[in-house]
């Protein structure tokens, strides 16, 4: 029913943009998963981030609109000031409810929602940041059979976020940037 079989969700906060700028150009046009990126940033409604990232990849990349359908090889950016949820049919819902971990979009919210729909067909990666957002979500992804990884805190611009996740939940992989790129490239 869902038009894509597997999903990758990447969550990041302070210091994450740079990694995405390195990762995205490496993905080839036939990359088969759908990808959602949830990035903390100053609340404003312009689409600067999506435009910036779209210039770094040959894959179709857009700021998520409500009811967008997850498609293979497509990348969706959670818009600022909305949480991003996934419906059972693989379509997206935007949600303007309370901030979670002082954040909207919140990484936890999307991780959890993705886990409910994709279960063991879900990959989540948590990047650099100074926030605890993402940890609870990873916990739930793991419980529901998904694969969880964090950026190597040694390499992260702000180590707190991936480090915090590692102390709370046993992650499947700790990825340096080179490893992360090959890991994501090889997902199929």
């Amino acid at each position, binding site marked *: 029913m869902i038009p894509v079989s597997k999903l990758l969700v990447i969550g990041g906060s302070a210091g994450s943009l740079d990694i995405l700028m390195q990762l995205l150009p490496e993905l080839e046009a036939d990359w088969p998963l759908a990808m959602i990126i949830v990035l903390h940033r100053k609340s404003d*409604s312009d689409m600067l981030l999506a435009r910036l990232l779209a210039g770094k990849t040959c894959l179709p990349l857009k700021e998520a*609109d*409500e*009811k967008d359908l997850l498609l293979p090889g497509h990348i969706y950016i959670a*818009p600022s*000031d*909305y949480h991003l*949820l*996934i*419906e*059972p049919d693989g379509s997206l*819902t*935007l*949600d*303007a*409810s*309370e901030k979670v971990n002082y954040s909207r979009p919140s990484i936890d*919210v999307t991780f*959890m*929602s993705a886990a*409910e*729909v994709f279960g063991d067909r879900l990959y989540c990666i948590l990047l650099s940041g100074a926030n605890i957002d993402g940890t609870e979500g990873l*916990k739930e992804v793991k*419980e529901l059979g998904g694969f969880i990884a964090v950026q190597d805190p040694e390499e992260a611009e702000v180590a707190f976020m991936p480090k915090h996740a590692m102390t709370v*939940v046993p992650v499947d992989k700790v990825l340096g940037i080179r490893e992360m790129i090959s890991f994501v490239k090889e997902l199929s």
Partner: protein
Amino acid sequence: MDSLRHLKDEEIVILLNDLLEQYGYDFTDYSFASVKRRLQRVYTTDRFPSFAEFRYRVKSDPVYLTYLMEQITVNVTEMFRDPAFFEALRKHVLPVLATYPFIRIWHAGCSTGEEVYSMAILLHEMDLLHKSVIYATDINESVLEKARKGIFPLAHMQQYSQNYQQSGGQQEFSRYYAANYEYAKFSELLSEKIIFAAHNLVTDRSFNEFQLIVCRNVLIYFNKDLQDKVLHLFSDSLEQLGFMALGAKETLRFTSIASLFKPIVQKEKIWRKIST
């Protein structure tokens, strides 16, 4: 690892059926992911030992139901939220409405009323409030009760004042409220022209004709069919050349009423009804 129990999709469906059959609240056309998340939150926070007990409480305790209704629907709002939107109202919509002898505005899904009071302030500043009525509706009686009081936390006023100024407000924002301990009570001069009433967009019909309908960040929680139904309700409730304003991520594009409207301020999601 102590893991909190998750509500199953089937349990959500059972609960939604209860709400519909017993109380007439129809959430079955709401975004499933959103409703599920809200219900899960209540279930976890209130530490129900089992789904059966949760269900029993909802079915047997009307006070709890009121609370649950407020929890399922999203009631996050602020005054002059998205200042650029209010600036657009000031510049492009209200000057047109000013030419009418009498102005009727419907604010649908108004929650605790912050945006409604913001609208009243705009009307007041353009000297239009005396000939305006704002119908502010929401599905929840409990949030309307808060809205009627016009009392908001004083701690928010700094942010609201900033929003107000960014929207083009020229006055001292504090002139509109009286501060009392932790609360700011907004002037009755503003609420005099607001009628707060319960209205359910899912089941209730149109109740008047308006020149402006504002409904922001409500449609995002509805599925496509319900969005379409509600947009028709709005369209039917608008006068010819009336305005419709939606939330930042909501659109008329690709809907069945799109051809009846033309965008006025595209970025701020304001349309005008150009045919019937």
